[in-house]
């Protein structure tokens, strides 16, 4: 009863927020509502018992993507362009597609029906046998890191490719005097935010520790490499937001972080190659150790570690390059202001 009520409320709110996002012109408000949308989605996932997905959605959808949207908006402008064309044709296409999709759902089995195709092929084996075959309490980790390790490898490669793409498109060669000017701006900012700075300093160790907990607790509860990487990266974001990018660049060496991104994915691939050398198939952890279950544990630990390294460092790379662009813009504006003052 209460579950039904929560589901209905959350879904209604989702629709309301989505309509508000579509109708709003101020992009900052839109980005903030998108953050709320992420939180709502994640709450809904929790209500549906998909805890691991909710974890990822909370960290990525509500946290990091909102932050990146803000950075982009500061570079592109705050209000939406007025619509010049008539949206009738688009509306027609969307309505037809939507009604076709709804028509398609009529053929689908009911939610949670035991004879649904998704519950008849591999799912029973995952649920019944994973404890003997993999020996990991959290079923999601067993599926993600062992049964479907090759899919996960593909996902990590996608994340890595995104990092490379951002580097190729957005990275700018930096000069030392640029950093000096930016540092001046940041210093003046620091003086004004003493309380935020102190609280942040106290929080960051907890966030990093919590990220490690999520990384290694993934076998037993919700969590794993993806979530841990994002949480770890968000601690670094928080540092960069409050202490300035040039300070953060001194703490986090950019070439090392690029290396870590590559090493993470290399570790993942190497686990696969080693298991092939030991006589199994690619990413078959049973052969990594004399005992199959111990082999599974070792393999899952190593690949989660690789995933965590790659995700964290790619997130840091993306954020630093986005925010670096924004800071360059700001610096140019500041120089113009100084010139204007001199002219006066």
């Amino acid at each position, binding site marked *: 009863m209460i579950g039904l009520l929560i589901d209905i409320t959350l879904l209604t709110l989702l629709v309301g927020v989505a309509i508000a996002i579509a109708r709003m012109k101020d992009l900052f408000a839109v980005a903030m509502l998108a953050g709320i949308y992420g939180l709502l989605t994640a709450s809904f996932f929790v209500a549906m018992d998909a805890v691991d997905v909710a974890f990822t959605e909370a960290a990525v959808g509500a946290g990091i993507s909102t932050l990146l949207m803000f950075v982009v908006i500061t570079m592109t402008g705050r209000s939406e362009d007025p619509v010049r064309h008539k949206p009738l044709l688009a509306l027609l296409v969307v309505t037809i597609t939507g009604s076709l999709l709804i028509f398609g759902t009529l053929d689908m089995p009911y939610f949670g029906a035991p004879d649904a195709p998704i519950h008849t092929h591999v799912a029973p084996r995952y649920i019944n046998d994973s404890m003997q075959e993999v020996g990991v309490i959290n079923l999601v980790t067993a599926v993600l890191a062992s049964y479907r390790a090759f899919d996960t490898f593909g996902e990590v490669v996608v994340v890595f490719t995104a990092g490379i793409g951002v580097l190729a498109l957005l990275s700018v060669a930096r000069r030392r005097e640029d950093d000096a000017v930016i540092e001046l701006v940041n210093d003046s900012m620091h003086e004004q935010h003493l309380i935020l700075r102190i609280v942040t300093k106290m*929080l960051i160790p*907890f966030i990093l520790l919590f990220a490690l907990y999520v990384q290694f607790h993934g076998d037993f509860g919700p969590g794993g490499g993806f979530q841990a990487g994002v949480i770890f990266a968000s601690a670094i974001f928080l540092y960069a937001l409050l202490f300035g990018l040039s300070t953060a660049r001194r703490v986090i060496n950019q070439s090392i972080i690029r290396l870590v991104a590559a090493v993470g994915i290399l570790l993942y691939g190497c686990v696969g190659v080693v298991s092939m050398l030991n006589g199994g198939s690619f990413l078959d952890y049973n052969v990594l150790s004399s005992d199959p279950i111990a082999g599974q544990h070792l393999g899952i630990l190593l690949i989660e570690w690789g995933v965590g390294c790659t995700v964290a460092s790619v997130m840091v790379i993306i954020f630093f390059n986005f925010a670096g662009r924004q800071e360059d813009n700001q610096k140019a504006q500041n120089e113009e202001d100084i010139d204007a003052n001199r002219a006066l």
Partner: protein
Amino acid sequence: MTLDINTIVEILSGFCLLIGSFLCISGGVGILRFPDFYTRMHAVGVTDTLAAGMILVGLMLQNPDALVVIKLLMILVMTLFINPTASHALAKAAFHNGLMPVLDDTEILNSKERNKTTDNDLEPK
């Protein structure tokens, strides 16, 4: 009449949850009904932290499991640090960027028309 310890804990927990719920709703009404940003901030900033504290303490009393209590305690400590800090930063930023409190009754009556323009006035260059 004698009360055993479990009943007392149960009653305490229910009491905490009840106060937390009341504060939640009053904060929600406050953020919706108050006339300008600073009064809304007051409503939310005051009730939010205490409501979170009360509900979390109420939950702690419900469960004897040590790990769960520690996690709840972590959330509580983080809420106690984060909420006032965020409120402080927000109010400071709003005040320094020229958002003025509504001080007069007549202004409250006109605030609907007035507030419509504020979003554009505050837009950074």
